């Protein structure tokens, strides 16, 4: 190997970083580090940040982005993107709220109405996913364009179903109270000065106690945690997940290995629709109403969560665990800024900067990789 006599400090640093693989460690860990720094910062400078209630809030708030981002992770790993999920969330919430309301109003048992409403919402959400999949995998339309078109279609459909209104909110009272049991409920409560109660919020609480009530294991968080863990498992350990990475890494390699790429991609976009549908249905449980407007403002956040978590927009790499950190960073940021009384609009600037940082780290990784490659080729 040729001796390098005059190397600049920068050159030496780059050399060491590239050889030691340090960049890969940094790339994997920096989102976690950033999250911890954010939490520490807000805890130190904001009153009421470091409380169980606030952390519970953060987790519950993050469920919407996290669900959307989970499906989006699969899509982005295959080298695609799904812009339509914002309104798919809305569509699912509208359909499930409408079905619940109409079934309950025509005399059906509220629990049954809710159950069927859930199925209807989820089922409806898969349809845009299926259409996206066919447009992209079979008709070879670029994902950005196909899902942009579907964005418009789903938006129209969602508003048509509400006859232009922003909300489907007139669910009967018994349905609403059942919905709240899950949407607002928790597996574990801590009642101030009384201790811990499982499963049900006691009916006989004083106002003081109600204000101090801590929901320690909110159902929405538990449900979303289970969903996310299941999808993370599928992506990391199963044949389906392996093929997802393969398609993202080299569509040709996947095709020539005999993988049915077309069918796989259709399923991927259906998964994206499904998770968006879950988010929409969850919204109905939390707010006892459906709205076409629920998911769209959060669409870019879902992509941001995926990118911040280390998934490359070019496809082929990424993990759900990273997406989780990304979603948490966004939720912590939003909550923290509110507690600090900083104009919440700053969050957009901060999130934007973090995304750029995430992409830069990714680029550095690729750069070092290619440098290492050249080095090896020369001296192989």
């Amino acid at each position, binding site marked *: 190997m040729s001796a390098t006599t005059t190397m600049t400090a920068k050159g030496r640093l780059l050399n060491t970083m590239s050889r030691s693989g340090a960049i890969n460690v940094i790339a994997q860990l920096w989102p976690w580090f950033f999250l911890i720094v954010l939490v520490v910062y807000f805890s130190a400078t904001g009153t009421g940040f470091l409380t169980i209630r606030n952390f519970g809030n953060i987790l519950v708030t993050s469920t919407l982005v996290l669900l959307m981002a989970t499906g989006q992770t699969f899509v982005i790993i295959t080298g695609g993107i799904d812009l339509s999920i914002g309104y798919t969330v809305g569509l699912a919430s509208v359909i499930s709220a409408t079905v619940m309301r109409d079934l309950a109003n025509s005399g059906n048992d509220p629990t049954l109405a809710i159950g069927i409403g859930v199925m209807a919402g989820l089922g409806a959400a898969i349809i845009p996913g299926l259409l996206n999949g066919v447009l992209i995998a079979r008709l070879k339309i670029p994902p950005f364009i196909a899902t942009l078109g579907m964005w418009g279609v789903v938006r129209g459909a969602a508003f048509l179903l509400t006859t232009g209104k922003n909300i489907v909110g007139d669910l009967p009272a018994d349905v609403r109270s059942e919905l709240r049991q899950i949407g607002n409920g928790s597996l574990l409560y801590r009642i101030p000065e009384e201790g811990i109660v499982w499963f049900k919020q006691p009916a006989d609480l004083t106002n003081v106690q109600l204000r101090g009530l801590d929901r320690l294991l909110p159902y929405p968080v538990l449900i979303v945690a289970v969903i996310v863990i299941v999808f993370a*498992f599928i992506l990391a*350990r*199963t*044949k389906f997940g*392996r*093929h997802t*990475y*393969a398609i*993202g*890494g*080299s569509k*040709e*390699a*996947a*095709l*020539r*290995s*005999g*993988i*049915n790429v077309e069918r796989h991609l259709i399923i991927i976009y259906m998964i994206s629709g499904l998770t968006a549908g879950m988010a929409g249905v969850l919204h109905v449980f939390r707010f006892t109403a459906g709205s076409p407007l629920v998911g769209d403002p959060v669409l870019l956040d879902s992509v941001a969560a995926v990118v911040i978590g280390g998934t490359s927009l070019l496809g*082929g*790499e990424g993990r759900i665990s990273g997406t989780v950190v990304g979603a948490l960073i966004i939720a912590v940021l939003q909550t923290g800024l509110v507690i600090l009384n900083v104009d919440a609009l700053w969050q957009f600037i901060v999130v934007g900067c973090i995304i750029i940082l995430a992409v830069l780290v990714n680029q550095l990784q690729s750069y070092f*990789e290619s440098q*290492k*490659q050249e080095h*090896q*080729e020369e001296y*192989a």
Partner: protein
Amino acid sequence: MPNPNADPLLRVEGVSKFFGGLTALHQVDLEIYPGEVVAILGDNGAGKSTLIKCVSGVYKADEGRILFNGHDITSSTPHDVRELGIETIYQDLALAENLDVGANVFLGKEKQKRFLGLIPVTDDEYMRQESAKILNRLDIHIPSLRQKLVRLSGGQRQAVAIVRALYWDAKLVIMDEPTAALGVPEQRKVLALVRSLRDQGIPVIIISHTMQDVMEVADRMIVLRRGRKVAEVPRSEATVEILVTHIVGGSELL
């Protein structure tokens, strides 16, 4: 050496392929017998890769038939063709660089085990170990099998592509420019592999521009020019000059 009395393992009959107004292949006939190495030569655009892709199922021939071991594979998918025992190593290797050696060797045919006795998951350890066995047998050294392919050198990646072809008990191996990206020692290893395949009775079709490779390893040379088969020369009659003349045209001079 091929047994001329045996039936051909692969038979390509009158195959043509068009891309719009372009004739990539025109009425090509070809036969491959067990235990021989056949080289397909031709200039760029002669149709070599197209022919191979018709055999391996990536393209569907517009005219003619392709028969393998008695099966009509003219319309088969790449999956079906692999199932029948034809393994193809493409010029661009068709490897997933974001996955490791084991994952690539087993791509599309992943070995699974049961998680908690119930859920099928990929058995990465098994796939890695099996790949290691073949790599050792072929005397190819890859330091860590857990690394993604993007970290490996060109020669190592080529080796992985070959291991993938070998692992699945190929009955016919097709190689498109196998030594193109390799250094000299690795080129020799690849050619040794080709010979050992032939010695095991597995025929190899090798597309190559490299005359030395072809002269060293092929039993028979087939030349394509502008989509047509223009010559078929056994090793005993072949010289570099004759082959080049066929490739470039001007065989009227011979």
